[in-house]
């Protein structure tokens, strides 16, 4: 085999036990290395071990402190104003696969957000739902007055639109806050439940019919621009073959699968899984439509054509769904 030519560092914020590391990032790195015939080596640094807070990952990849990072766009609210559209409920319908395919297919529309880094791929998780330690939320009215940990800026709007109260805190602080009653629950996916031991805290989960969810979060794996440009063309081709639309269906499906582990753990702990009726779902969706409107108004005030972006994003998600 030809000698190793390039070593790339990959920095991210979760411990090596996390699905994202075990199932997504480590195998991806091995695949790139294998496809390059060993000429690319990728050294993964989990759990912020290269230093800094998760919010700094984007700056680190832009500056080249790390060559590649996996990060959550919501860590730096305001920095990716266009891409945020895919986090909105009623844009993200509840399928990690569809939204992930749509995200990577829409990179041209989102180009302005990512002009400073080379995006390898974007992805979403399967979607937020309400986890509650106190209240069975069966109707839209039941949600009013609940204190819920918000996953993101737009997540806070979703919570407000339900007449509930958003509380911001880092995910690791959630179990303590739930057990102390500082919050009633949280807006997060199923996937994260085992890691936070939510099976010991949740009494109910509430989601919309037909797998419908209340928005999602967008993640990115990005590479430093100069480091990417400096690669020889054949190595670029190896990276490209493992990037964006070439792998988006596979990555999206992974995140859909991650949900099952959480669903099983909660079910075996006797947590009641509530799916609201169509009638109630219509009320949730009416509230969610105001969230989309709020987002459009806000980005439009910043000189971005929000309405057009929402339309294109919805079309991309619909196309992904049709293609599946």
């Amino acid at each position: 085999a030809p000698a190793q030519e390039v070593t790339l560092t990959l920095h991210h914020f979760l411990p090596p036990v996390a699905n994202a590391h075990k199932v997504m990032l480590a195998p991806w790195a091995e695949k790139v290395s294998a496809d390059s015939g060993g000429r690319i080596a990728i050294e993964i640094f989990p759990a912020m071990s290269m230093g800094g807070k998760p919010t700094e990952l984007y700056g680190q990849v832009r500056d080249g402190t790390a060559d590649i990072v996996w990060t959550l766009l919501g860590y730096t609210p305001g920095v990716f104003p266009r891409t945020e559209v895919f986090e909105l409920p009623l844009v993200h319908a509840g399928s990690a696969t569809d939204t992930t395919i749509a995200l990577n297919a829409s990179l041209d529309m989102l180009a302005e957000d990512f002009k400073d880094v080379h995006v390898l791929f974007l992805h979403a998780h399967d979607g937020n739902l309400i986890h509650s330690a106190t209240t069975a939320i069966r109707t839209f009215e039941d949600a009013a007055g609940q204190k819920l940990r918000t996953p993101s800026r737009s997540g806070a709007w979703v919570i407000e639109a339900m007449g509930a109260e958003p509380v911001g805190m880092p995910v690791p602080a959630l179990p303590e806050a739930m057990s102390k009653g500082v919050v009633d629950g949280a807006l997060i996916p199923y996937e994260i439940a085992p890691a936070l031991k939510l099976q010991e805290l949740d009494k109910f989960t509430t989601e919309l019919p037909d797998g419908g969810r209340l928005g999602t979060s967008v993640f990115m794996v990005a590479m430093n621009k100069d480091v990417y440009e400096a690669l020889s063309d054949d190595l670029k081709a190896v990276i490209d073959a493992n990037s964006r639309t070439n792998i988006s269906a596979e990555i999206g499906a992974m995140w859909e699968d991650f949900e099952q582990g959480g669903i099983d753990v909660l079910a075996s702990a006797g947590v009641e899984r509530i799916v609201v009726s169509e009638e109630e779902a219509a009320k949730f969706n009416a509230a969610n439509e105001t969230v989309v409107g709020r987002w459009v108004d806000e980005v439009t005030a910043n000189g971005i054509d929000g309405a057009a972006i929402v339309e294109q994003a919805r079309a991309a998600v619909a196309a992904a769904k049709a293609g599946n």
Partner: protein
Amino acid sequence: MPDPITIGMLGLLLLFGLLILRMPVGIAMITVGVGGTWVLSLVVGHIRFVPYLRQFKSLLWENVANYDLSVVPLFVLMGYIAAEARLSSDLFKGLEALLSRLRGGVAMAAVAACGGFGAVCGSSLATAATMGKVALPELKALGYSPRLASGALAAGGTLGILIPPSVALVIYAIIVEGSILKMFQAAVLPGLLAVLGFILVIAVLVRLNPTLAPAPRPMEREARRIAIRRLVPVIAIFSAIILGLGFGLFTPTPAASIGVFVITVYGFVLRGVTGEGLTLSGLLSAIRSTAITAGMIYLILFGAEVLKGFFTRTGLPQALSDWAATSGLDPMSVLIIMLVIFIVLGCFMESLAMILVVVPFFWPTLIALNGGDFVTADSAAFGMDNDSLKIWFGILALIVVELGLITPPVGLNVFIISSLAKDTPMATVFRGVLPFLAAEFVRVGLILMIPALTLIVPRLIGH
């Protein structure tokens, strides 16, 4: 050219060298972190120095803009305000009133007051200094031997670090990504054990050598009544903080804030009613002391972050834990070796810096020895899952780190006590501390053999 792991080890040696040359700890950590990464960038192609430097745009600010860490300055402030508001003195006087009928009772009261004050103060040095100021003159006037008096206070001061709230426990919890609250709960029994152990040591010493303490002289009725009356609110406030924290009425930052609020209000009211209590200039002086202590802590924390980035890039911590996992070493022996290393380093290193430099090396090694990231309690080498190991090891490490405060040649608590008791030479204080040190070793042994001593409280409250 040396390989990265060798550079990592040289960096560690250089760090100790700079510390011995009295470079401020935080500055030394940043120097080795940045300098070491520069050297590394010359050897390792894919580590590029200028891109590395660019992270300093946000590294410092993000490091201090941390909600979890905000408990640190708040706990520090709480301790200083409690001292300024004379709660420390009321606590000691009240306990003295209760215990002065026993031979050695006033020294016992001083140790118990150290434990109590530890409940509002996050630092051992501050506990030793505060209670030393309050109790030493009294013990001297009553005719206690300087050896017993100073030894009891230097040892009692170490209680501040373990009895929650504790700055060191907060920081340990943050570096191993554990729960601050669980650490606090786990520290309760070992902390009480230490208070009991120290009181027992005093009882045995005065029994063996009655000249160490004067014949008991019960306080006069009226003074006793006043002392006990002023003890009650202090105990109420301190217990409220401990219980509020322990039983989870509040998460740490709100608990610390409410603690500061209640103690400040009580201090001002006390001043209004009795003429003794908190003054505005007292509050300002508490703030200034907090600036010094918290400024020092934040700089060391930032230094540790910079150092971590360097060591991670050398691959040294990973190499150590891989080596431990495959070496076939007996896990318990490794744990004991780690504790001995803490004690040896504690002879000359500052406790917080020690936790921050050493724990990131030891913790992954312990996980590897325990059976790796995914191990369950049944198959784990230590017989407990990683979450419990985190708690148990943290408490053990904290106790042995605190021992460094009273072991020669450098024992910061001993220095403080000997500077407060001007006519007591340092050697006398070190001799006075010896029996208490023996009690501490017994305690470490107990906690090593019976992990339940640390794990039972968080487990009971957790469910």
